[in-house]
């Protein structure tokens, strides 16, 4: 009996790696789908955007890069679909330089689905270094930081942008966050200028945002791949998050089983000693 546990405890890492790979790949190959339960935080975020009237303006900040793309890109796509289907205008910008093209890719894809035109229904402002200064500065005048869009076209040549001067004209700010930029949006745009904020974050960041949610400093929180899948469920269009959740489920189960086996072995071996 003891030998089995010793053998189990000294199993090669690579066998574990292989198991993980299989548990991720198989549910995807067999195209499993599981129903998604929608949590309260995501429902709050959804209904904030849902209650906006046509013509309202949502600003989305791409504060992530390829390292968290699988979690945040489906959120971006689902939110864009939601906005465009309700004729809400979108202003996109980004605080993480290496992630900005991801925003452009999503805009390109979703705008086509809804027949939306650049400059009339959405613009992409691009990136500027030094995000804290920008967040405060936009409170006064957005043109001080973004005289032009990411292609160098003056933003005043887009009809709906002519009326946007600062946070006052932005109905909701959606921050898609993989790091500390989310805190900065809350502490600068939220606290100083009373900007209504929704945060969509990676799983790593999400738990740290709950204090803001309870203090009503943010009005909605979309956390991790599950959060993205919930938003996809609410906008009734399945994307990569819903497709990924079964694989996610099984790996969670695998890891929990690993922890249990590891601990049983640990206690048995310790008792023997």
């Amino acid at each position, binding site marked *: 009996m003891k030998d089995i546990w010793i053998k189990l*405890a000294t*199993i090669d*890492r690579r066998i*574990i*790696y292989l198991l*993980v*790979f299989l548990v*991720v790949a198989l549910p995807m190959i067999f195209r499993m789908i*599981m*129903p*998604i*339960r929608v*949590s*309260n935080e995501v429902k709050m975020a959804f209904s904030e955007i849902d209650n906006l009237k046509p013509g309202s303006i949502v600003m989305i900040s791409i504060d992530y*890069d*390829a*390292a*968290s*793309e*699988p979690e945040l890109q489906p959120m971006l796509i689902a939110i864009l679909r939601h906005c465009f289907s309700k004729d809400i205008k979108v202003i996109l910008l980004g605080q993480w330089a*290496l992630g*900005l*093209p991801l925003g*452009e*890719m999503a805009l*390109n894809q979703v705008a086509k689905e809804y027949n939306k035109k650049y400059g009339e229904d959405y613009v992409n402002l*691009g990136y*500027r*270094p*030094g995000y804290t*200064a*920008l967040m*405060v*500065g936009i409170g*006064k005048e957005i043109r*001080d*930081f973004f005289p032009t869009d*990411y*292609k*160098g076209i003056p933003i005043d040549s887009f009809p709906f942008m002519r009326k946007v001067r600062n946070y006052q004209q932005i109905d909701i700010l959606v921050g898609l966050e993989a790091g500390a930029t989310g805190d900065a949006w809350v502490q600068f745009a939220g606290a100083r200028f009373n900007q209504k904020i929704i945060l969509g974050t990676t799983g790593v960041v999400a*738990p*740290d945002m*709950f*204090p803001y949610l*309870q203090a009503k400093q943010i009005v909605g929180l979309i956390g*991790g791949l*599950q959060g993205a899948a919930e938003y996809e469920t609410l906008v009734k269009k399945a994307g990569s998050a819903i497709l990924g*959740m*079964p694989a996610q*489920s099984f*790996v*969670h*189960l695998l*890891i*929990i089983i*690993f*922890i249990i086996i*590891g*601990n049983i072995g*640990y206690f048995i071996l310790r008792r023997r000693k």
Partner: protein
Amino acid sequence: MIRTQLPLIITFFTGMLLIITFFIPHKPFGDLEQRFLIWYSIISGFTVLLGLDSLVRYHLTKLKREFNIHSLLLLFSLFLTLILGFYSWFRFKTPFALNSPFMYLYTYVIIPLQATMFALLAFFIASAAYRAFRARTFEATLLLIAATIVMLGRVPIGSYIWKGIAYIISGIFPKIPYEELAKKEVFALISDWIMNIPQNAAKRGIFIGTALGGIAMSIRIILGIERTYITK
């Protein structure tokens, strides 16, 4: 003298100004703040270039000493990126046109490399879960239990597992109807509660501490007590 005193004076001046303008909207303070913020944004761009020099220099000297493929490849890919970037800029007016060669590099080199580096961690976590995460103390036990509940509550499979448990419970206690029990997504409910109450409370407590620490640091920097950034 000027080498250490001048930076300290500038830090004090800008730091204090930014605090004062927060409270005084009257001219010239409000305007000055906005102007400084724009400058900050411009200058921050240049800081990015700082690391570039040491990177290039390090690998050039390494190459001079002896040929090695790693350094060569690094420098090659750096200059290739620059060339493609400026070429795309001339050709498409912006390097960020999705069909430009610069974005080609982004799609097929940056995304796979960056994303895969972090995807490695999934394997490391699984292996550590099996070989190292142990309930050896009361604290660690609590942590692992909370983690397990959250991990089950945040994925769809949690509700399937609960249905299984509900089936067993209603088997043992026939008085409890299975249907009703199965409908309650217990793992999800507990996990939501954990996130909103105990973890929320502890995070708030921890962050109040770190916020105070951060403010202390900022005050030290503004007043010139903390000056490691100068000696660096």
